[in-house]
C-alpha cells in the first residue's frame, strides 16, 4: 500500500550513521591527482613564444615584460577558468597544472602566478 512516509523506516537509521558531508576546513577530501588547479610556471623552459596568451579563452594569461628584456606569461587566477589550454598550447611544456585548489586571497591581484 502506498502510504505517506513509507520510506521512513529505511532512512531513519541514517540518524545514527556518519553524515555524508564533511566539515571542510577541519576534514579534507583529497582531490584526484589530475585535478586542474593552480598552474606552475617553469621559467627555464619558456621561449617567450606567446602561444599560451594567444589561446587563453578568458584573458587570464598575458605576456608581461620582464627584467631580462623578454616577455613571459603571467597568470591572473581571478580570470582563470582552469581549462589548461595554456599548458596544452605550450610547445615546451613550461606550464604545468597542479592539484592545488585553495586559491582564496584577501585582495584582487594577489592571486597571480608569476615566475
Amino acid at each position, binding site marked *: 500500500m502506498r502510504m*505517506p512516509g513509507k520510506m*521512513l523506516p529505511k*532512512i*531513519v537509521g*541514517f540518524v545514527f*550513521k556518519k*553524515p*555524508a558531508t564533511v566539515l571542510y576546513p577541519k576534514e579534507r577530501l583529497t582531490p584526484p591527482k589530475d585535478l586542474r588547479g593552480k598552474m606552475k610556471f617553469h621559467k627555464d623552459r619558456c621561449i617567450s613564444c606567446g602561444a599560451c596568451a594567444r589561446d587563453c579563452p578568458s584573458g587570464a594569461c598575458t605576456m608581461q615584460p620582464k627584467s631580462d628584456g623578454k616577455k613571459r606569461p603571467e597568470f591572473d587566477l581571478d580570470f582563470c577558468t582552469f581549462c589548461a589550454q595554456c599548458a596544452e598550447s605550450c610547445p615546451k611544456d613550461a606550464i604545468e597544472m597542479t592539484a592545488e585548489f585553495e586559491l582564496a586571497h584577501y585582495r584582487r591581484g594577489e592571486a597571480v602566478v608569476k615566475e
Partner: protein
Amino acid sequence: MNWLLSIIYLVVFPGILFVLGFAFFAEWLDRKVYARVQRRVGPPFLQPLADFIKLSSKEDVVPEKADNAIFTAAPIISLAAILAAFLYVPVVTATALHVFEGDLIVALYLLTIPTLALFLGGWFSGNLFGQSGAMRVASLLFSYEVPFFLALLAPALMAGTWSMSGIVVYLYGNPLAFVVTIGAFFIAVISLQGKLERLPFDIPDAETEIVGGPMSEYSGRRLALFRLARDAEMVVGAGLIAAVFLGGPWCPFISLDPGYIAWAVGAAFFILKTLIVLGLLILMKSAVARIRVDQMVNVAYKYLIPLALAQMLVVVLVKYMGWF
C-alpha cells in the same frame, strides 16, 4: 513564601525561561535530526540561540504598505498567547499553576491565537505573497483545529473533566487509559504538525511556492520573535499532548519521598514524554513531500475527523461498559 514560589514557577521553571529554553532546544533537535536523516551534519547546539540573537540585531524593516501596529503586534501576541497556554499544562506535579474546570478549552483557544496572529501579520504586510499565504493560513485553520479539538476531547471524556490537571490526576489513577485513546493521540500529533505548519503541511509558508507566505515581509526582531513563537508553540503543543494523553509528570515510581525528588522525577518524565511527541513530529516531516491546500482539507475531513469521532465513540462505549 508562596508568592515567591509562584514567581519562580511563572518566570523560571516551568514558566517563561523554561519554555523558551526548551523551544531553542526543540528547534536544534528538529534541525539536527532532519539534517542527519538527510545525511548532513546539522547545526551545533547553540545555533538556534545564535540565530535568535543575530536576527534581533538585524535591521527591522516595516514595509510602507504594511499596517505598522498589527504588523508589530502579531509576533508579540502569538508568543504571549503560547506562554499563557503553558500555565495550564501540569509539569511538575499533577496540578498546574492555575487550575479551574475548563482550562483545557482555554489552553486550546490560546493555542489558536498564534495562527490568527500569523494570518493578520501576513494580511497586513501589504505583500502579495504574504496575503496569499495569509489566505492559506485562514483556509487551513479549520482543517487542523477541528481534528485537534476532537482528538483532545477523547481523554477529556475519558477522565470526565475539562481540566488538564484533572485529566492528569485521572491518568495517575488509570495509566492504562492511554491505550484506549491511542488513536486520538496520533490524530492529535498529526493535527499538531498541521497547526505548526511543518512538512507535509507547511502549505502557508511554502518557500518554493509563495516565498515564505505570511512571513515574507518579516525581518529582524519581529521575525526572530515569530520564529521563537513557533518553536515555543511546538514545545507547548507537544507538552499539552504529553500531559493529556501520556499523563505528563506521571511515572511508575510516583510515591517518592521527600517531595522535591518526586517533583524532579515528575518534571523529568514530563520532559521525556514531550520529547517523544517532538520526536514523532520531527520524524513525520523527514520522508514526505508538501501536500496541496485541497489535499490537506481532504486529509482532515476524510480521515482525521471521522477517525477522531470514532475514537470518541470508543471512549463512550468503554465508559458505558464500565471497563474504566
